[in-house]
């Protein structure tokens, strides 16, 4: 297209969080021309907010720990729709990946022996669920995400990775063969739009928790990668599976790590009762997140909530003592004092289940290659397109992610994708060009937005969208409410398509970025809504009042949402790990 600058790379990574930086590190060491496009300076990515740690069987707390036990927990935690080959890969490659992070300088907390400190987290067991609670989450105090993200950024500086910081990718560029050839991106500082042409395009764009009104997620978590993939016509997998973290600070939504329960904290209701003993007699407050979140909501619904409106419960930590809190949970003390006006050393923290993590995403294989399905329902690789981290669905989390597994997912599959792409580049992937029509198509929505002269404002529409999702697609779901929500979304789609961008200026125009983000949020929300209504069972984080049981006959599978006809199809779950027998689906209790 005339006047549109073209930048050419061997590989471009969209997103500068943990997954993007780990992929970039692998590729920057390869000598191929690689760039990371990030809408924020990389250390401002949401990985920085991860607190409790990275779960991995490194054998520090227990020398006999075994990655297979971690695999068992993860399969069970996923409610059996995590792919067992991918989980096997993550859990077995994990230790090496974590040691690499340590060698890069990650300041892990330490044991008396000088090894990496590990703490107990929810859903962890020894000996395939028979050996009691494990302590498998490697931690840097309660700032593990910060430590990990900064360490990866530092390692990338050391390796001279090229960064396009504060650049925002608006859409995928697809050529006539259906291959991905790059992205359209805006340099936020100057407002210039460019075509970034790349042999490999990797999405590491993170989650989309901002589709809900109440979320632990950063303001930047707007599902940009999912939005772009859906607009390009690619499917997303298990997108109805949203994790609600049990302990978001009431009112503010900021996260209180599961590690606070790992260190011995517990939840109480208005009677002062430790209610998790009733719901999960064995693991209590360290049951899986979906289980704890539902139990909390039930306590509130049954009138045992705390506070003036009886709409939250309390997290008690004071019995751990000031020393433990200062050394193990310093960040939580800070956040509680700032956002809840509560000092956990003396008083419990008001908490409520809060949207936290998107288990679904762009379906990929272990190499990060994005997948779609052909007309026979068979997997088909999308040429030139890769996804890693929260925006991808490998799937290691299935219906419910275990705490500490997201950081592991980022680095294991970021590394795997980087290695695979390097090898592919070595074998020779051609640099595909895009025609003017291809590029015009990708530029269409930017053009429309820049031409808009009337319509509702971005904040108004965003608030409406978030309220629909919060009210109709929350912790407990029901068919008729969801259908009602889908109708509301239909009307919202029309209005969002006509959103008004008042400020058309070029330099650091954050209003334009927010308008583009809003469209991505909407795409994720609609896919979530339709897939959720379609899955007529309760599994993992997807709990339905009208279908209370898990339905293995019909739904022991991934959902696949196809945007062109808004159709929900199915995809088989992998039950064939390479080195060990299958974990067969069982009744899931904690």
């Amino acid at each position, binding site marked *: 297209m005339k006047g549109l600058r073209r930048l050419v790379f061997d590989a471009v990574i969209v997103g500068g969080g943990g997954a993007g930086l780990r992929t970039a590190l692998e590729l920057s060491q390869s000598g191929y021309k690689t760039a990371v496009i990030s809408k*924020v*300076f990389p*250390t*401002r*990515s*949401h990985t*920085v*907010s991860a607190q409790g740690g990275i779960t991995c069987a*490194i054998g520090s707390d227990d020398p006999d720990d075994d990655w297979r036990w971690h695999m068992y927990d993860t399969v069970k935690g996923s409610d059996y729709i995590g792919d067992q080959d991918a989980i096997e890969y993550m859990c077995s490659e994990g230790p090496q990946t*974590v*040691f690499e992070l*340590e*060698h*890069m*300088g990650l*300041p*892990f*907390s*330490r*044991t*008396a*022996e*000088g*090894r*990496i400190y590990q703490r107990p987290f929810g859903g962890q067991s020894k000996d395939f669920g028979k050996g009691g609670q494990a302590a498998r989450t490697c931690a*840097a105090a309660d*700032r593990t995400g*910060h*430590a990990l993200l*900064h360490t990866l950024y*530092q*390692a990338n*500086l*050391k390796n001279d990775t090229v960064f396009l910081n504060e650049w925002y990718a608006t859409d995928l560029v697809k050529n006539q063969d259906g291959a991905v050839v790059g992205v359209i991106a805006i340099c936020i*500082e100057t407002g210039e739009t460019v075509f970034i042409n790349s042999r490999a395009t990797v999405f590491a764009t993170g989650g989309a928790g901002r589709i809900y009104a109440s979320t632990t997620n*950063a*303001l*930047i978590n707007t599902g940009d990668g999912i939005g772009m993939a859906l607009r390009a016509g690619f499917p997303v997998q298990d997108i109805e599976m949203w994790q609600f973290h049990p302990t978001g600070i009431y009112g503010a939504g*900021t*996260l209180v790590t599961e590690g606070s329960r790992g260190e011995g904290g517990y939840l109480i209701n208005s009677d002062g009762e430790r209610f998790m003993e009733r719901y999960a007699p064995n693991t209590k407050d360290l049951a899986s997140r979906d289980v704890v979140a539902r139990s909390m909501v039930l306590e509130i619904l049954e009138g045992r909530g705390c506070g003036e409106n009886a709409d939250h419960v309390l997290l008690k930590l004071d019995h751990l003592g000031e020393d433990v809190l200062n050394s193990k949970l310093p*960040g939580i003390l*800070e*956040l509680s004092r*700032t*956002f809840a006006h509560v000092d956990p050393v003396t008083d419990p923290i008001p908490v409520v289940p809060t949207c936290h993590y998107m288990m679904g995403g762009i379906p990929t294989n272990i190499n990060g290659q994005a997948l779609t399905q052909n007309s026979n329902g068979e997997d088909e690789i999308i040429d030139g397109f890769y996804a890693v981290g929260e925006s991808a669905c490998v799937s290691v989390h299935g219906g419910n992610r275990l705490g500490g597994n997201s950081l592991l997912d980022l680095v294991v599959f970021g590394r795997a994708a980087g290695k695979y792409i390097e090898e592919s580049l070595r074998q020779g992937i051609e640099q595909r060009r895009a025609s003017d029509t291809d590029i015009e198509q990708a530029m269409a929505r930017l053009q429309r937005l820049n031409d808009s002269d009337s319509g509702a*404002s*971005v*904040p108004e529409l965003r608030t409406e969208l978030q309220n629909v999702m919060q009210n109709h697609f929350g912790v407990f779901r029901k068919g008729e409410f969801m259908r009602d929500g889908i109708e509301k979304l239909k009307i919202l789609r029309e209005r969002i398509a006509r959103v008004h961008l*008042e*400020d058309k*200026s*070029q*330099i*650091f*125009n*954050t*209003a334009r970025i927010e308008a583009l983000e809003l469209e991505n949020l909407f795409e994720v929300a609609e896919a979530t809504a339709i897939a959720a209504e379609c899955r007529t069972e309760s599994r993992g984080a997807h709990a339905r009042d009208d279908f209370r049981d898990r339905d293995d006959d019909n739904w022991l599978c991934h959902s696949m949402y196809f945007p062109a006809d808004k159709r929900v199809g199915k995809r088989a779950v992998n039950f064939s790990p390479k080195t060990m027998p299958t974990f067969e689906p069982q009744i899931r209790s904690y």
Partner: protein
Amino acid sequence: MLVSIYRYNPDIDDKPVMRDIEVEIPAGKDLMILDVLELAKRKDSSIAYRRSCREGVCGSDGMNINGRNGLACITQLSEVVKPGKKLVLRPLPGLPVIRDLVVDMSIFYIQFEKVKPYLINDTPAPAIERLQSPEDREKLDGLYECILCACCSSNCPSFWWNPDKFIGPAGLLQAYRFLADSRDTAAAERLAGLDDPFSVFRCRGIMNCVAVCPKDLNPTRAIGHIRTMLIQQGT
């Protein structure tokens, strides 16, 4: 309440101005400054500022709030403005303004990169992690938590005066973070890179950095340690 915001959009404005905007604060609520900004942006979408985590860990929204540098997302209205008074928001001082509250942080990042902010250890890595005693690990506390918000360096007159030659408190805190790491083997190389009249020694110890660090870190102390190491090395 009245919020006075530093406005400059080079597309439109010849020079920066302070412009007032009336924001309705919900009764009985003590908002964070970032929430106030979001309310202001609902009325005037052209106000530009950076923000991400909204919980004080990403370092995006450093700005000058009623004369004092801080993070908008964890600074409470009641901490900085008396009832009935104006909230005054300006960009971080001493850095070029791109637009409104958004500053160009390039020079800040360049100084950060100068200190080789990454672990250097050329000995072969073991099959597991490198061991580190809890005592040695404790030496990194108060150093590794930096979020690169630039509240400190942009509050430092020495940095204003020599932003290209004085590393500044944020960069030096990171320099010491690696000097203090028992796993790092490049202390001599690191100190050699800092051994000039400007990089470290332009710090006058006035502790402006300490006064505003939103994470309660102490760059002045770290700089003191580096000075000592440089002096000991010279003798």
